[in-house]
């Protein structure tokens, strides 16, 4: 049986990017400022992570104006939702696997 860690996607398997996708998956879209506030990130840091996610096709960035104020809205794509669901699933498997290893007698433990 394959170890769950082997199925992890490097783009999503990062705490901040996982958080970004989690926030975006909950609504239909979110503003840059909302993501910044929710995750406690600086402009530059959030921009860099969003760029990585956009390059992977997991988010779509829409820049525009509301009145005179520039606004950036970010949406999660279908691939992004799928990647998030897979990551959560693998993390849960990982926890379950290690917990069951700890609870099993020493001679039955998997490696």
């Amino acid at each position, binding site marked *: 049986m394959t170890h769950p860690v082997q199925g992890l996607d490097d783009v999503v398997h990062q705490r901040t990017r*996982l*958080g970004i996708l*989690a926030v975006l998956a*909950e609504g239909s879209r979110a503003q840059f400022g909302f993501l910044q506030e929710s995750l406690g990130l600086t402009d530059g840091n959030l921009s860099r992570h969003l760029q990585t996610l956009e390059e992977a096709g997991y988010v779509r960035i829409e820049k525009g104006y509301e009145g005179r104020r520039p606004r950036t809205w970010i949406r999660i794509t279908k691939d992004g939702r799928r990647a998030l669901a897979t990551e959560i699933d693998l993390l849960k498997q*990982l926890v379950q696997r290690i917990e069951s290893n700890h609870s099993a007698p020493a001679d039955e433990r998997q490696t």
Partner: protein
Amino acid sequence: MTSLSNEGDPAQAKAWIDDVSVLKSRTRRARRGMWFPLVIFGLVILASTPLYMHFNGDSPPIPALLAPDVPAPTTPPATDIAIGGSSGLLHLFTGGMFTFSPLKITVFWLVAGPMAYLVTAGFYWLHARRRGVATSSRAYVLTGLGLFALLVVTSTPLIPVPVHGNLLVRGLTPLLAVALGLFVLASVERSWALLAFAVPFLALCVTANLYDMANVTYRLGLGSTGPEVNVIVVGSVLLLAGVIFGLAAVRTRQRPS
């Protein structure tokens, strides 16, 4: 440290899963606005009350098909009513044979129903701008408009749909469209609480279409005799639910996460 080791660190994996769940619930709290459509539709329903009232204690004309001994009805069965004859454009899709003004009721709902959905769409748009996170209200608004369109279309002779006569006599079929829309709203808002409200509310709306709640209020000595009692009960329940959901949203937003 921002990624797990190859062997996997269960404590960290757990922390990440918890992070995701906290972020999701915080975002959900920020974006939810389901109280608004409940309040709007509650007010719209209550605003229609005067159209359902029986003034001076008179009863509206009873159609002959339901009371064969009385003189011929002054209003034909609701499904056949149309302005300008059966080929007319405006069919009385709400029914309302037991009301004095089925035409006014139809015009009211034809305007107020779609307007309420459009106002709701506007609210969600503004709410998203203000909060920085959006709920896609499109499915709810389109379903609501579609249900009203379905009521109109099925009331024309073009698409004859067999409908139990009792459903049409009180002119309250728009309440069913409102109630069914709440299931879609519960889905887009991902709210079990709203779903738990939508189920009994639909049952209440079906009851309002089939039974005169005035029977109860009359026995209680409250006086009213017409379908306006049904309208007041349904509208008040929806309005109250909207207020409760609104207060709950304010409370959860103020709670530190």
